């Protein structure tokens, strides 16, 4: 019996050892398009879904606000996508773990889209919480600020670990920056995204949006959580609600899901005394790669405009 237990323990330890080695090896290379967001404490946050993930570059805002000289850094883009970072208690719990203790003041940019407030039809609050906890990256990852982040890999990495043994063959056109911004570069030295691809992707996303209309609804649970997040941020610094522009077709579909979306955001912003920067009327002004998400140029120009507006508001507030 003793020898049997010894051999069994040896096999289990060997399995754990090989697994640990592979996880560690993977953590030193490319993990996925969100991993870097979970590897540091944040002095300020950009939250929302994929439009914010790809559309707001924290570096530009940090540089602009340097002149004010009282913002905690780093500003981290902590927006993922509609499936992984909708507004909810799970997002708030994760934010609380992510944020540093206050040193001076902290900046928070909350990007809003109807999709971030939606749930499957007739879902109860406790079921939404369970769904978010069990099926989103934010829910699955307990440690959000360590590097290497083994907790992230163990809980979210679904691909086989042999990927740790060769450089990951990632998509050519993106780069995840250490500050969490997911940059989409349509033109690289090797290849460029073609116009036909853009048209194909846009058609695909529009189709997906339409399909969601019949099975999703706006959830009061998500609205309440959104307000709780605003209230939490307000205790720590300056908050801005931002509506990122997109192609008109997406606006039309989003308004089918929530016709009075901008009015509702406006009323919440007024009620909680938070500026609402609504850029939805700037459709087609910034370059996207699929009609919805900004590419490098679009994101850079948009973030520059956003940082300028934020700067002006903060400057006025100072005076």
């Amino acid at each position, binding site marked *: 019996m003793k020898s*049997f237990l010894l051999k069994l323990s040896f096999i289990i330890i060997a399995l754990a050892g090989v*697994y640990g080695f592979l996880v560690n090896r993977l953590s030193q290379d490319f993990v996925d398009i969100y991993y870097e967001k979970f590897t540091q404490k944040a002095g300020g946050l950009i939250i929302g879904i994929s439009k914010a993930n790809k559309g707001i570059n924290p570096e530009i805002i940090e540089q602009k606000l340097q002149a004010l000289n009282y913002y905690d850094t780093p500003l981290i883009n902590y927006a993922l996508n509609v499936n992984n970072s909708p507004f909810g208690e799970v997002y708030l719990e994760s934010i609380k773990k992510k944020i540093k203790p206050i040193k001076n003041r902290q900046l928070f940019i909350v990007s809003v889209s109807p999709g971030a407030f939606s749930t499957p039809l007739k879902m109860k609050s406790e079921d939404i919480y369970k769904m978010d906890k069990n099926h989103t990256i934010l829910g699955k990852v307990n440690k959000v600020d360590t590097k290497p982040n083994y907790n992230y890999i163990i809980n979210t990495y679904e*691909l086989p670990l*042999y990927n740790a043994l060769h450089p990951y063959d990632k998509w050519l056109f993106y780069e995840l920056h250490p500050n969490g911004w997911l940059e989409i570069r349509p033109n690289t030295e090797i290849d460029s995204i073609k116009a036909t691809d853009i048209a194909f992707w846009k058609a695909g996303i529009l189709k997906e949006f339409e399909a969601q209309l019949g099975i999703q609804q706006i959830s009061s649970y998500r609205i309440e959580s959104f307000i709780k997040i605003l209230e939490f941020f307000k205790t720590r610094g300056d908050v801005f609600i931002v509506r990122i522009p997109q192609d008109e077709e997406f606006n039309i579909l989003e308004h089918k899901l929530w016709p009075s979306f901008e009015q509702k955001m406006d009323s919440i912003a007024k009620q909680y005394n938070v500026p609402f920067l609504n850029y939805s009327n700037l459709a087609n002004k910034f370059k996207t790669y699929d009609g919805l998400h900004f590419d490098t140029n679009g994101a850079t120009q948009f973030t520059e405009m956003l940082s300028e507006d934020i700067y002006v508001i903060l400057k006025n507030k100072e005076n």
Partner: protein
Amino acid sequence: MLFNSFEFLIFLPIIVFGFYFIDHKYRWGWLLLGSYLFYSFHEPELLILLLISTITDYFCGLKMADASHKLKKLYLGLSLTVNLGMLFIFKYLGFFTNSVNDLFTFFGVELTTQENMGSYNFSNILLPVGISFYTFQTLSYTIDIYRGAIKPERHFGIFALYVAFFPQLVAGPIERASRLIPQLRSHVKVNLPNIKKGLILIAWGFFLKVVVADRLGIYVDTAFAKPDSPHGFALTLGAIFFMFQIYFDFSAYTSIALGVAKTIGVELMQNFNRPIFATTVSGFWKSWHISLMQWLRDYVFLPLGGSRGSKAKTIRNVIILFFVVGLWHGASWTFVIWGLLNALLLILDFGTAKLRKKVFDSLGLKKRSIDLIGWFFGVSYIILTLVFFRAPSLNDALTYIEHMFQFKSMHVNILESYFELILSIIFILGVQTVHYYKGNDKIYDLVIGQPAYVRWSYYVAYVFIIALFAINRQNTFIYFQF
């Protein structure tokens, strides 16, 4: 709790070590406690249904012992009503109301929500994990007592353990009281060879699940997500992979269940006997989900008359049997159609047996060739019917089948990884080879009794295969949803 979860890796050794340390008299309590913890780990409220079923059948079983025929019938009726009632409410009510709604709509009558079912939406009722399995298991107990085949179990704890025995609680095998209860009562001593066999079955089950079935699942999910894809070959491959995915997934669960039970001295029945090698459709159904098919044979098909009456009656009974098979798997018309399509082929199989024999004889075909033809057509038909099993709606299933046969595109690499595609095929061939030579239950013969260097080669290979090739999804087993 999932077999393929971290919690289970902690839970199992505690249960097994505890079992052997505790005095025989109290082991039932230890296993019952473990079983309830296992079942209610994520959803404690589900335990209530299990307890209702347990208490009802314990009570009905005892009352039937020396009762008159009339009273026996009454208690059997009570057991059937409670168990099937719960199953109906939690599994079929939404399907039933939707179907009634659709029927009224078809005749031009629109039922408003209030008229139909008040403010509550039945589709929101949560399906309790394993309810179809434990309901059938506990029903067999009361029916067997009613028939006089077994005596009631007087020890409530042992009976409760029979209903809730954790290795097979959520996805079978559906055990009969006459097999399982005596084993739960028996005085088990530490039996190292048995424990080793159990661990090998568990290891094999893990491999089947996380390396093979979940890997195939990625391709299947991608294929079925676009039933109108122009890539007909990819859709065909998706359907073939699905047959193997569901087989390996369920076989993995069964293997782990058998292995876990073996470590504490309980022998559960095998649910599979190399079904994909069956040369006829009836052969397939005799070797696929054996515990369910035997249950339905004993409690549905034979009481209806089986195949003893006229041809028409046999056809009726086969249709009813497979209607129940379909409905048991899921409250949806796709499952019903899947069941009925299988009934159709079985009827054709019986009906054309003489004609086929004549044709094969006239062609001078040998048994081996006939078996090969039977296998090819049988498996192809099963693959096709399983599209209804997997597709989310009838429309999707029909679209999928229609596009499967449009061979305009040879593109099969829909995951954009030939390595993964080849790996999937290698694993299918590997597992099928093992199943062909060792069957589904004697996997441990590959290891036990072999020279040390062979055994250690297996162990080392296993460690590396699991670490390198496992899909880390922690997916539930497909049969959990039934």
